[in-house]
């Protein structure tokens, strides 16, 4: 055979394999409203940048007549490409081939591309669409999962890892996404759970639909397992690209800066926050009032809404924002909001992204359910994450900063580099009502009119202590600033922190309150 004919033969082989599980299986995939594995990769990557490897892999299962079966690519596609010119390693499970089930060679393809991502220090995107372990391959498929989880763990904090759930991802398979940095889900398509509705029904007698148990809404609103929710695969891919644009390729680099822009004039920073500390407002407007082009890329938008986290840019550079949200539960810290913010702070720290914190919280959420759910341990994660972070850390106290909440939200005492406060800030051990009731208990009780006396004492306390100047007089607040100076102060403080040197005591690793 001439090379030309051999080349024609190669093209034919490739075409056959590219069809995955064949026309019929593809039609079924499409009828479920899903794209094929190959279409998904191509939709995420820059045009014509996808290069595939291990196309000719064959599975090694010999039992249960598996040796007679051909599984194209063994049900997974791996390769490299680019997203906005950033090099990317990617894999996509192909549900049309044996339900995307994971056998030994399938797993070896995934671990090959993971090893590649680690060696080249580039982001890894994994697209999950699989019925789970290939039962016929027995312990080999379990070994395959284990090898993936181990690599996820080693790669954590070294390269960004993104998991995209575009089909079922059940049983042990869910642990790979859970170990990665960001999980993307799509309405009606994503399904994640450890044990499915069938098992729950037979074992526990509880009836629940797959969607309610582990659908996209459940994981983005109730469990917090998913960071990004989209109505369609197309929208999901846009989110992935936007995220890649904000983060660095690995932990030795900084995110690539883009052309700076001023915030939009429609966000009037001095008109957003009501002066009465009991009145709510949307803190996202404060973030948008300072970021370039007023862009804010929110993470965990639908879960633990009493804290807001996400990326924005300041003079072109990526910054991570953490902000209490007075709109929801008055912006308190609780179990979920602590988990949400602590992990994000650690992400930013691992990937050299400065953290800006907007503080306005009355404290921790009271309640038996919170205490019994371990709010002490969860709340401690926030303190741990801020204390440990060595990236530039800037706080702006917008309004309330009371008690333990004040300490937790990147205070000077946890080594914030710069702490600014607006003139309306109230930094105190607790709100004026609570404090007055304790300090002036006797005066109030002994008064002819206790209610009047209480009001008088609250006013007195407010006047004396509910302001930023007591903390500023002790150097805990570096500057009391006008709201309109906020962007300028934050930008400058990040600029002067460019050579920040801060190190932790030498240790194998800390023991955070997981």
């Amino acid at each position, binding site marked *: 055979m001439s090379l030309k004919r051999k080349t024609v033969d190669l093209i034919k082989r490739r075409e056959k394999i590219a069809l995955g599980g064949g026309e019929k299986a593809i039609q079924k995939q499409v009828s479920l409203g899903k794209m094929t594995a190959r279409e998904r990769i191509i939709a995420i990557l820059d045009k014509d940048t996808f290069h595939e490897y291990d196309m000719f892999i064959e599975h090694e299962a010999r039992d249960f007549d598996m040796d007679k079966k051909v599984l194209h690519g063994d049900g997974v596609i791996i390769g490299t490409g680019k997203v906005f010119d950033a090099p990317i390693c990617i894999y996509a499970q192909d549900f049309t081939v044996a339900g995307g089930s994971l056998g030994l060679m399938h797993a070896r393809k995934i671990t090959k591309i993971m090893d590649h991502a680690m060696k080249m220090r580039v982001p890894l995107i994994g697209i999950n669409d699989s019925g789970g372990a290939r039962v016929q391959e027995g312990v080999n498929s379990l070994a395959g999962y284990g090898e993936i989880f181990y690599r996820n763990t080693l790669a954590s904090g070294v390269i960004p890892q993104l998991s995209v759930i575009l089909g079922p991802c059940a049983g042990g398979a869910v642990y790979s996404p859970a170990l990665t940095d960001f999980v993307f889900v799509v309405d009606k398509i994503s399904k994640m759970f450890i044990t499915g509705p069938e098992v729950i029904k037979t074992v526990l007698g*509880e009836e629940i639909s797959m969607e309610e148990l582990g659908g996209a809404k459940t994981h983005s609103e109730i469990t917090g397992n998913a960071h990004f929710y989209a109505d369609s695969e197309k929208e999901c891919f846009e989110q992935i690209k936007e995220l890649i644009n904000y983060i660095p390729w690995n932990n030795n680099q900084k995110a690539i800066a883009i052309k700076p822009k001023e915030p939009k004039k429609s966000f009037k920073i001095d008109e957003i926050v009501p002066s009465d500390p009991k009145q709510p407002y949307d803190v996202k407007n404060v973030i948008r009032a300072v970021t370039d082009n007023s862009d804010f890329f929110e993470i965990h938008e639908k879960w633990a809404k009493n804290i807001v986290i996400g990326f924005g840019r300041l003079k072109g550079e990526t910054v991570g924002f953490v902000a209490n949200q007075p709109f929801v539960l008055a912006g308190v810290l609780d179990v979920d909001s602590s988990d949400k913010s602590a992990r994000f702070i650690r992400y930013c720290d691992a990937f050299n992204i400065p953290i800006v914190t907007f503080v306005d919280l009355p404290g921790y959420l009271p309640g038996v359910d919170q205490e019994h759910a371990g709010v002490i341990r969860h709340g401690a994660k926030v303190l741990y994450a801020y204390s440990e972070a060595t990236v530039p850390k800037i706080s702006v106290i917008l309004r309330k900063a009371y008690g333990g909440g004040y300490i937790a939200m990147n205070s000077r005492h946890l080594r914030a580099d710069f702490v600014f406060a607006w003139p309306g800030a109230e930094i105190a051990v607790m709100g004026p009502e609570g404090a007055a009731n304790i300090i002036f208990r006797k005066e109030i009780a002994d008064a002819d009119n206790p209610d009047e006396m209480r009001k008088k004492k609250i006013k007195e306390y407010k006047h004396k202590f509910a302001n930023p100047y007591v903390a500023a007089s002790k150097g805990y607040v570096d500057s009391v600033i006008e709201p309109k100076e906020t962007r300028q102060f934050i930008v400058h403080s990040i600029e002067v922190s460019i050579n920040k040197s801060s190190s932790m005591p030498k240790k194998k690793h800390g023991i955070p309150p997981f």
Partner: protein
Amino acid sequence: MSEEKKRFKSLNIEGSKYYTYLTNKFENREKWEKPNEKTIKSYIPGKIVKIDVKEGQKVKNGDTLFILEAMKMKNKIVAPFNGTILKVHVKKNENVPKNKLIVEFK
């Protein structure tokens, strides 16, 4: 703003009432109740496969009350103290959810 204001609810933190949205999780949270020591509830959903006691029966600490099959295990539920059975609230082979009242002591 005033229309929007009506949608906010108040949340009391250390004596101060803040106006804010509440989350579903917060609004639907279960109120904690002091456990009644005289009642035995299912600690896990499952099936009552055997009932060993009748109303009015005297039992000793450690006597088997009933068997709750859950998670493929036949869990023996025993009397936590000496006492008399006031009422049995389930029938044999009944599927029970978590925290269902099963046996009540006098």
